[in-house]
């Protein structure tokens, strides 16, 4: 903590403590950015934006096999470790425009990383201005935020964290020079907080590149022993398999759109599209079955009766009962009755009555790999 003493003469108001709003993802970089600011005596609050595509411990924990993974929201956990307040804000609806129409295009998959960063910094900028307005209205100087910080590092991410994107994000988001990146600030022109002397530029960092070693060294220096290490970021849109499923959804519906249930369901189960007009979402184990149960009021479903097996949601409509029987035989392949001559399952309309179907499970060789959307 910076304990620099300031002389205050009689009748003078003491300088107020400067406050920063940090974009907290739950990863190490944003955690370090906050630490660097706190070390300079800056008061920090965090904001975490929920897009619907966030990768979290318990998205995986739906699956039995991942039950041992920590079921925690990393952003909340980080905020608690740092001792800061965290505002979690649902931007999933507004965020659709970023995913559907990114001005700066996609990365390797469906990830609109540059537009995403601009959008999030812009939202934080709006919060900063709202806080300023509120502070003015209440004449309660000190409640607003003075600047925004992010854990961005030049060269860390191929699409959004590049030398040329840094000023672009600052400009397009409206944050301008109230946007400070403490981890790589020394490689960038001084920002307002540095020029005004709220922050000491010399105590900021000049980390660049994809190596995580400098961040790990800094974490060690701060005594941080535990932190999340998301591979490939914290967003499902950077995942190849997930992106393929999203592309398939748009193709099948002949329009580029989604709702929250769509994007949650893309995280769960085995997705097979044997025909363009329907897709089967087949649970892979008990945890997923339990989760998919909640969607039976919304989708038609298959449920095994004669043998243990998956719950399957049917996204689309069958053209005939023969087609339903054929689809049921595909699903039976993934049940414990896969070697049986015949299995029984229910075919149930949303909120409707179940109909019993008897089918012979389809041989594995008859299920082409191409039906598996985004891989098996």
């Amino acid at each position, binding site marked *: 903590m910076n304990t620099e003493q300031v002389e205050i003469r009689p009748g003078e108001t003491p300088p107020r403590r400067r406050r920063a709003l940090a974009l907290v993802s739950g990863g190490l970089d944003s955690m370090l950015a906050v630490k660097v600011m706190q070390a300079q005596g800056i008061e920090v609050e965090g904001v*975490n934006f*929920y897009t619907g595509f*966030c990768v*979290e*411990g*318990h*998205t995986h*924990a*739906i699956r039995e096999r991942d039950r041992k993974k*920590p*079921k*925690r*929201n990393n*952003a*909340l*956990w980080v*905020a*608690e470790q740092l001792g*800061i*307040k*965290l*505002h*979690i*804000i*649902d931007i999933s609806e507004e965020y659709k425009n970023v995913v559907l129409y990114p001005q700066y295009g996609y990365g390797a998959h469906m990830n609109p990383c540059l537009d995403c960063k601009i959008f999030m910094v812009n939202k934080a900028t709006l919060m900063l201005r709202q806080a300023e307005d509120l502070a003015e209205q209440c004449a309660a100087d000190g409640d607003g935020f003075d600047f925004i910080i992010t854990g961005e590092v030049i060269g860390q991410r191929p699409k959004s964290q590049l030398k040329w994107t840094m000023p672009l994000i600052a400009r397009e988001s409206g944050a301008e020079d109230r946007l400070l990146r403490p981890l790589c600030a020394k490689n960038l022109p001084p920002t307002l907080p540095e020029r005004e002397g709220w922050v000491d530029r010399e105590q900021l960092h000049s980390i660049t590149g994809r190596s995580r070693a400098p961040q790990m060294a800094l974490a060690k220096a701060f005594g941080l022993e535990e932190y999340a290490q998301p591979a490939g970021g914290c967003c499902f849109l950077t995942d190849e398999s997930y992106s393929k499923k999203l592309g398939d959804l748009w193709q099948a519906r002949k329009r580029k759109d989604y709702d929250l249930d769509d994007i*949650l369901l893309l995280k769960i189960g085995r997705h097979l599209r044997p025909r363009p007009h329907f897709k089967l979402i087949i649970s892979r184990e008990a945890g997923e079955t*339990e*989760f998919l149960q*909640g*969607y039976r009021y919304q989708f038609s479903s298959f449920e095994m009766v004669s043998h243990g097996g998956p719950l399957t949601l049917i996204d689309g409509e069958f053209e005939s009962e023969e087609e339903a029987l054929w689809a049921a035989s595909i699903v039976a392949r993934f049940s414990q009755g896969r070697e049986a001559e015949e299995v029984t399952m229910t075919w149930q309309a949303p909120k409707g009555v179940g109909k019993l179907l008897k089918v012979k499970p389809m041989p594995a060789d008859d299920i082409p790999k191409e039906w598996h959307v985004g891989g098996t």
Partner: protein
Amino acid sequence: MSVAPDASIPELDVRRLLCPIPVIRTQDRVKTMVPGALLDVLATDPGVLNDLPAWCRINGHRVVATDRRDGTIVVRVEVGGAAS
């Protein structure tokens, strides 16, 4: 600690919703409540057992008790003095 059903305590149903939506919905609901009020959050995502207490600690609220009823996790939250 068990949570005895109490019709006078409002419920927030976030069953089937995944992290962090249960926390967001709780956050939004608590903003409309007065300090000292109780809220029962009904969830199915086991993550709430970590997340709601963490969120409460950060924001000055308190988890009074947690329980499981017929596959539903019930977290009783007491709104703190400084609602976030």
